[in-house]
């Protein structure tokens, strides 16, 4: 769809706004300062609202607006993605994530243990093979498959050696036959002369 200059100007304004906003956020996060979202967002939102009202009052609502709006949202998402990526790449975030995972694991470990034990006990009482027993059997099958493959490999190696041996034997026999034929020819020559 064709762009008209009015909406293009608004698009540029919006883009500029996003860039300034993301830079401010990135700066705040990089400096490790406490972020006050309400203080930061007020001018940002005011500016955004002004841009939108300008868009609706000065420009007729045309189908082109949809494309513009889509572009605004794409830029907004891309800008936030950038900000989040920067924030998540910091040591502080990695540390916080690590702590969160530690806590999750600390909570998970006893829960998992209790759940495993109770399931095991229930299945055992019902005379049904438990998960660990099934896993054990599956593991044995995997080991068995490995052993069979090991045997296959050895057989292949053995077959290779035997092939070499047969080839050497065949070469030897050919050479012996050639030698014998040579000797016979010589003997024949001698008796002939």
């Amino acid at each position: 769809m064709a762009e008209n200059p009015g909406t293009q100007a608004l698009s540029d304004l919006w883009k500029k706004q996003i860039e300034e906003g993301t830079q401010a956020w990135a700066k705040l996060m990089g400096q490790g300062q406490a972020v006050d979202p309400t203080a930061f967002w007020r001018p940002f939102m005011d500016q955004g609202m002004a841009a939108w009202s300008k868009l609706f009052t000065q420009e007729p609502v045309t189908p082109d607006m949809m494309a513009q709006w889509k572009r605004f949202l794409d830029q907004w998402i891309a800008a936030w993605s950038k900000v989040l990526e920067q924030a998540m790449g910091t040591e502080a975030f990695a540390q916080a994530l690590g702590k969160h995972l530690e806590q999750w694991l600390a909570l998970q470990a006893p829960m998992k243990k209790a759940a495993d034990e109770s399931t095991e006990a229930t299945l055992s009482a019902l005379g049904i093979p438990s998960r660990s027993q099934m896993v054990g059997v599956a593991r044995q099958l995997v080991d068995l498959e490995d052993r069979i493959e090991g045997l296959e490999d050895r057989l292949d190696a053995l077959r290779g050696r035997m092939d070499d041996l047969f080839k050497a034997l065949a070469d030897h026999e050919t050479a012996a036959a050639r030698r014998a034929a040579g000797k016979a020819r010589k003997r024949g020559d001698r008796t002939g002369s």
Partner: protein
Amino acid sequence: MTGGSAKAGEGHGVQADLLAQGQEELSRNLLRMQNFATILLNQEEPKVGPTPREEIYRKNKSRLYRYASTRRHPTPLLFVPNLGISRPYIFDLLPGSSFIEYMTRQGFDFYLLDWGVFGPEDNHLTVEDCVTRILPRMVKKVLESSGARELSVLGYCMGAPLSASFLALYPDVPVKNFVNMAGPIDFSQVGLFGCWLRPKYFDADRFVDTLGQIPADLVKVGFKLLKPTMDLSTALNLWWNLWNDSYVRSFRALNQWANEYVPFPGEFFRQWVKEFYQENRLIRGELSLRGTAVRLDTIRCPVFVVGAKEDNIAPPACVRALIDAVGSQDKEYVELPGGHISLIAGRGASIHCWPKVSTWLAPRS
């Protein structure tokens, strides 16, 4: 024509344009609603993996597939993707959006190693097992079934460091060419995952000892966190293109893949995180598998490395590192537009990446 009538004509033209645009938008909105209803009502999974293939070999959960092809190039190509995380049908998603389909049409004798979905019984599987037990067997089967004396290996994502370790460990294996697509090699430059998995913040031992297998949901959280706005932009793009049947078809297939995560075997995860991410042993030449040092400089075959400009899983710098590490004379690095997935899957890939790989590989195959 006078100035006034010209202006009036112009005005009529603009109005006609607006009317046409309005009508177009209206019909698109109707189509959007129709397709939205179809998505909601039709829960049938889209058919993926259209290229015909046959299973050549299976080892535990892993499968080796050979794809139908004209086989114009005598050297077969073994494709080694990532283990865990996601399923490999992304490489053969739909007709016209398939890397495998493209490569087979170019005449490559294409083999795919599908590592499979590992269960708790496979928790003892390590990186070492993959490199020294599974890969050698797969290579052997490729050579046996193709009847070729040599093969090319293409590693994608985690498949690249695994293949590179295999090549370095077994220099006698007849690998004619090696391609690394978006495979991390220097883990000191691996981006956000590298930062989050630092030993002081992430205790891999504790994770594996507690959980055993690393569940698919946890893998999903990790990858979603890497790009938190992804779902939002996906939803927005879907709404925008909802009128387009072909887009919707691709979206459904891609969405199915994007939400199908695969768990990691515990010991594999432990070794992968500790020795690759945390200690960066591969590029340092400190990786040892089955008591043998893995030295990348022993790789002497032609090497082609492809990095993606916007890759946040394996950023270009960590992929490119392979070029300086190998002992090959014939080596080339290209950096293409796209992210980790869009490098190899999707419309951009069919324009930028697939022809590059094919063009490099064809004369060497």
